[in-house]
């Protein structure tokens, strides 16, 4: 097994090196083949591993596959602790491996066509970055301890930075990239502190030891650690308050948005929490926090998405809100549900982005949906796949989204009905904005310019193929996790992941609600969703360029994303800058350096004054001598004060 394990990340690394170093010499096609080929190879490798895990894990009672951990070498070894460079391949990581390499491969394929206009050098750069990203992401999920995870964690952050700023001529893009990196950095600090905490208490960061020695941690420790880890997740997975970078990150090429900012990277936080599920299960306080933050994000982002007109922005906010759902799931302890949703979401959200990409591609980088419409006529495949994706995300049975979202909502209900109802509200909003998007883009009449219309065409096969594949996946993807209301223990995913969550499962009693309840809930929700869909489609069919005016009132606030960015600038960025300026111009210059120079100035001043004592007058010189002598005498009779001296005279 071990050999193969190393191959998985090795291929993308190779791809990165080859494309990166040979970017001046390789032809576009070569670059494309290398780039996506490497990912395909590592997809093969990981599916092989998947097979092994599947095969090995089932017979064993505790479900742990043989030698799930392989060590490469000792990364850091001090007297205090040892941090090996180790990979852990078990059910959780292998699942993510498949998602990453699979979708990664599709998106590479897609990109070969999407990025055609780029000149070779940058084309190669693009694929190099992409491969590097896959490499880091694999490191993240395969890492056998928190440090390796952190390496990947930072690596994907770097790649997203590079890819968002891919068109580096554009200042705004660079700004967005920087923003993304720094906001991630804030989260990373939390992550690091958590790691230090673990290391400080347990002297190790390897999952195997940490989770087995967890009982050595006090409740306070666990709460602190989990909270800090969650802060890290906030940054990476764009949760309140650190979500604002994700919408801006849409500056990057659309495939990048699909891969990094929808399917894979942003789910790192979920992966991390799922990985350390046992910690969270033992920290109910943090769990509540996670649930609330997740839910809040889900609703909040959904509201913003309602009024966005940029096709990618809508998708971005929907991503944020879907991530919110996942955290809700984690918060309520439905880890499987979270992972499940990660997977399905990866399918349909990637599909949506790619579809959007294909639209943008066709519209010559027009992203405003108010200027689109009636595209189904020109790009059928895109249209169909997009529609399927919308249905999936809206959660219409039997599309994948339905199962995962349903599982989450059920879990939420089990924990606290309030969660459930709010969650449903979010789901309805999701449906609304998705179908608003769909309708405005594909239905109605075309509102773009003439020559745009003239150029409209279906995208090449390299782009449509991934769409189709993903569409299939998002349709059928749900069937790996059928809730037992339909069929008793058909929930394959739950079985598969059970070893991972076994410990948590022991600790948390999962009271299942009765089937009747569930049926009712599903029915109600589904009908509501369908209703919303019908309403939305009818409402926006008749949308024309005329009423694409600026939103007003509450709509305006939503359109401006609750002014969160502005508030951040006012509340944090500007004061910080001002303070830094104060330090630079006042404290440093006049304060500290002033003090240092002040000493010098003092000496100079003293010098100038002392020179005056040297008056050139013999008499004054002698006068001082005499007085000094008198002083000396007085010093010598140090026991005799002047007064005594006087009375001795007379």
């Amino acid at each position, binding site marked *: 097994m071990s050999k193969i394990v190393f191959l998985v990340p090795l291929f993308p690394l190779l791809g990165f090196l080859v494309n990166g170093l040979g970017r001046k010499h390789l032809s576009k096609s070569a670059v494309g083949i290398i780039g996506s080929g490497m990912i395909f190879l590592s997809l093969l490798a990981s599916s092989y591993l998947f097979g092994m895990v599947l095969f090995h894990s089932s017979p064993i009672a505790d479900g742990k596959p043989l030698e799930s951990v392989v060590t490469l070498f000792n990364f850091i070894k001090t007297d205090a602790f040892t941090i090996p460079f180790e990979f852990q391949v078990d059910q959780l990581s292998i699942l993510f491996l498949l998602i990453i390499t699979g979708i990664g491969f599709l998106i590479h394929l897609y990109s070969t066509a999407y990025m055609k206009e780029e000149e070779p050098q940058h084309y190669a750069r693009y694929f190099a970055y992409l491969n590097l990203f896959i490499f880091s992401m694999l490191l993240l999920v395969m890492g056998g301890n928190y440090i390796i995870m952190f390496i990947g964690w930072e690596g994907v952050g770097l790649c997203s930075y590079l890819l968002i700023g891919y068109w580096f001529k554009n200042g705004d893009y660079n700004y967005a990239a920087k923003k993304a990196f720094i906001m991630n950095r804030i989260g990373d600090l939390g992550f690091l502190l958590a790691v230090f905490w673990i290391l400080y208490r347990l002297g190790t960061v390897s999952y195997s030891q940490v989770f087995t020695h967890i009982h050595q941690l006090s409740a306070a420790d666990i709460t602190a650690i989990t909270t800090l880890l969650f802060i890290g997740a906030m940054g990476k997975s764009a949760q309140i308050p650190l979500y604002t970078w994700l919408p801006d990150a849409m500056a990057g090429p659309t495939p990048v948005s699909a891969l990094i900012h929808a399917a894979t990277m942003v789910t790192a936080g979920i992966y991390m929490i799922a990985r350390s599920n046992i910690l969270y299960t033992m920290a109910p306080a943090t769990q509540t926090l996670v649930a609330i933050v997740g839910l809040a994000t889900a609703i909040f982002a959904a509201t913003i998405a309602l009024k966005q007109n940029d096709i990618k922005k809508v998708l971005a906010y929907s991503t944020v809100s879907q991530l919110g759902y996942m955290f809700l799931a984690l918060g309520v302890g439905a880890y499987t549900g979270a992972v499940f949703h990660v997977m399905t979401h990866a399918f349909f959200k990637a599909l949506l982005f790619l579809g959007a990409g294909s639209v943008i591609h066709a519209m010559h980088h027009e992203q405003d949906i108010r200027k689109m419409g009636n595209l189904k006529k020109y790009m059928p495949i895109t249209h169909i796949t997009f529609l399927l994706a919308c249905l999936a995300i809206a959660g219409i049975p039997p599309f994948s989204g339905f199962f995962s979202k349903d599982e989450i909502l059920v879990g939420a209900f089990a924990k606290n009905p309030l969660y459930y109802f709010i969650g449903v509200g979010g789901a309805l909003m999701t449906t609304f904005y998705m179908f608003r998007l769909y309708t405005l883009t594909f239905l109605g009449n075309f509102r773009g310019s003439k020559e745009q219309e003239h150029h409209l065409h279906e995208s090449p096969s390299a782009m449509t193929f991934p769409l189709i594949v993903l569409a299939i996946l998002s349709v059928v993807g749900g069937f790996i996790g059928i809730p037992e209301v339909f069929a008793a223990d058909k929930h394959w995913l739950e079985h598969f992941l059970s070893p991972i969550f076994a410990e948590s499962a022991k600790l948390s009693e999962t009271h299942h609600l009765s089937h009747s309840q569930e049926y009712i809930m599903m029915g109600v929700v589904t009908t509501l969703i369908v209703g919303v869909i019908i309403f939305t489609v009818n409402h926006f069919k008749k949308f024309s360029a005329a009423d694409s005016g600026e939103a007003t009132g509450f709509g305006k606030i939503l359109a401006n994303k609750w002014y969160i960015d502005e508030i951040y600038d006012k509340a944090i960025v500007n004061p910080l800058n001002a303070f830094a300026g104060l330090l630079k111009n006042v404290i440093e210059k006049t304060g500290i350096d002033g003090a240092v120079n002040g000493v010098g100035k003092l000496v100079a001043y003293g010098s100038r004054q002392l*020179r005056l004592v040297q*008056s*050139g*007058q013999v*008499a004054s010189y*002698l*006068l001082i001598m005499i007085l000094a002598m008198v002083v000396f005498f007085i010093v010598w009779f140090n026991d005799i004060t002047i007064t005594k001296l006087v009375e001795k005279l007379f």
Partner: protein
Amino acid sequence: MPIQYYIYFCLTLFTIGIIGVLTRRNAIIVFICVELMLNAVNLLLVAFSKMHHGAALAANPTTTVGIEAQLFVFFIMVVAAAEVSVGLAIIVMMYRNTHSVDINFLNRLKN
């Protein structure tokens, strides 16, 4: 005659000399005051020599204790004479160049 009288007397002369040095501006007068100081010292030395001599005389009638002080006075006079010759020469040179013997006039060198 108690020695203290002599000491007070000499110190007075000495101090007068000092005051003269401090207060007068004529280089020659200043120099004279220095001479005054030296004379005060001379007298004091002689007084001391006689004091010690007297003390020693009781024990040994042929003692020469205290004679070295008088010789010291002799040497002081020698030095004083030499100093005077040089000093006056300097003052004269000064006078040649500036036509003044005012020491406050000497302030090209300062600070």
